[in-house]
């Protein structure tokens, strides 16, 4: 048998566990094939458990295991690193728990936090660098660790309660008004925040590399002249402190 064929046969055995794929290896191979099959699945389940610890607590071990098995069957790993294996686990959750956007958002939070943890480094911007900025032309440069999505549920409150081992963890609930979830890394720590619709509108402009002036205009439109300008200033200060903004280009 050619090596490529033999390796494809081994893959078929790992991904399907079917007796036909095992036959090609001979009777004596059976106990060993079982070890490899077990190692393969155990490792992927563990990888998902480590990537989604609070989701695991939220749905319970049985549900999580079923979701993990369904995921492993539908999404055999492709990348060289296990770190990326759980990236599309949320697709499986959407299929298995279609009425639970809180779980989908909880999964997004956990995945984004782990991505942010090893995202490229960026040093925070010194305040002095802002003195000479031409604000008419300025665009904010955001940290490469920033992850952003629509928030429709209180998944961030759920995650925080679970993460801090709080005495009571809130039920999943829809938000009255949709906002956004933002994850990034500050120093070595991954951070999570929920933004209201106004701040989110401003951040979306910054993510789209819009001018800071356009951000101000948007906030003025939403909040009125005085409050809009004040919010733009406050957001900039806050994002600088938090390490969300790491540069200003003008």
């Amino acid at each position, binding site marked *: 048998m050619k090596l490529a064929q033999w390796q494809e046969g081994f*893959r078929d055995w790992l991904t399907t566990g079917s007796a036909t794929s095992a036959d090609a290896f001979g009777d004596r191979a059976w106990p060993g094939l079982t070890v490899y099959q077990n190692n393969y699945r155990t490792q992927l389940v563990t990888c998902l458990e480590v990537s989604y610890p609070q989701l695991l607590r939220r749905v319970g071990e049985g549900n999580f295991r079923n979701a993990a098995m369904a995921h492993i069957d539908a999404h055999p790993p492709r990348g060289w690193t296990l770190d990326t294996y759980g990236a599309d686990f949320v697709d499986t959750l959407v299929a298995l728990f279609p009425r639970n956007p809180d779980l989908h958002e909880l999964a997004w939070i956990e995945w984004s936090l782990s991505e942010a943890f090893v995202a490229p480094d960026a040093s925070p911007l010194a305040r002095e660098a802002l003195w000479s900025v031409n604000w008419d032309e300025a665009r904010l440069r955001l940290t490469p660790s920033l992850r952003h999505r629509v928030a429709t549920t209180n998944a961030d409150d759920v995650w925080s309660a679970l993460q801090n081992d709080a005495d009571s963890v809130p039920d999943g609930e829809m938000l009255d008004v949709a906002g956004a979830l933002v994850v990034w890394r500050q120093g070595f720590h991954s951070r999570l925040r929920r933004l209201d619709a106004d701040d989110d509108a401003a951040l979306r402009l910054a993510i789209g590399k819009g001018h800071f002036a356009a951000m101000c205009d948007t906030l003025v439109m939403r909040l009125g002249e005085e409050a809009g300008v004040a919010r733009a200033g406050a957001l900039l200060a806050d994002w600088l402190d938090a390490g969300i903004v790491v540069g200003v280009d003008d």
Partner: protein
Amino acid sequence: MFTPPPPFSGYGLGLRKEHYRDFLDGDVPVDFVEVISENFMVDGGQPRDILRRVGEKHPVALHGVSMSIGSADGVDIAYLRRLKALADEVQPLFVSDHLSWSRVAGFSSHDLLPVPYTEEALALVCRNIEVAQDVLGRSMLFENPSSYVAFDGATMSEWEFLAEMSKRTGCGLLLDVNNVFVSASNHGFDTHAFLRGIPAARVRQVHLAGHSQGPGLLIDTHDQPVCDDVWALYRTAMSLLGPVATMIERDDAIPPLAELLDELDIARGLGTVAREAA
């Protein structure tokens, strides 16, 4: 281009998360640490920082699990370039991976799957090693993995394969004594034939680890202390090979650092006896 590593580099431990603080804050009596390369082949953040800081205190060996040197598809050049970037930064004592495969046709098993010991596989593995060493700009070490399935059509033993592979490519060997023990028990070969069959001068590093009894097979679990049989085999290996950089691998049920250092002292004692005899 190839920089041969120093002939003997003492006694080390695998650097694991549970012991980061010990290594960062204290003065751990090891001669080197070994890290899993892939854990540090990331863009940024704390892992790279920790490796930088530990690397200022101890020489570092890079040990990979994803090179898949036995893939019929060839090696992954993007992976190799990433590893090279890490190696260029770390300036490691050794860069190693396993004589195994994990990738085929876009699928990656993330397990160290066995290579059939045939001429076809040998030619392919050698070609892959040459590409890898070329991209990295340094020679590598390859480790004998624990295996649970043997290929029916094998035309040579594992040690004959390793010997020929290192002869053709100039690569070094990482001898995992526990894996020899586990594979010998699973496939019924003689551990001493293995140790006598590999080229002593090519063995640059040794792994010691614990295993478990599975249903009908021994399983390489790295979750317990090195057992007496493996210590005995290590003693034999040292008498045949002379002193070789040795470390203990523990990946699960990780005990306090002091326990691993005690285990490492046993290796140090056996190695010193072998060194004096040499």
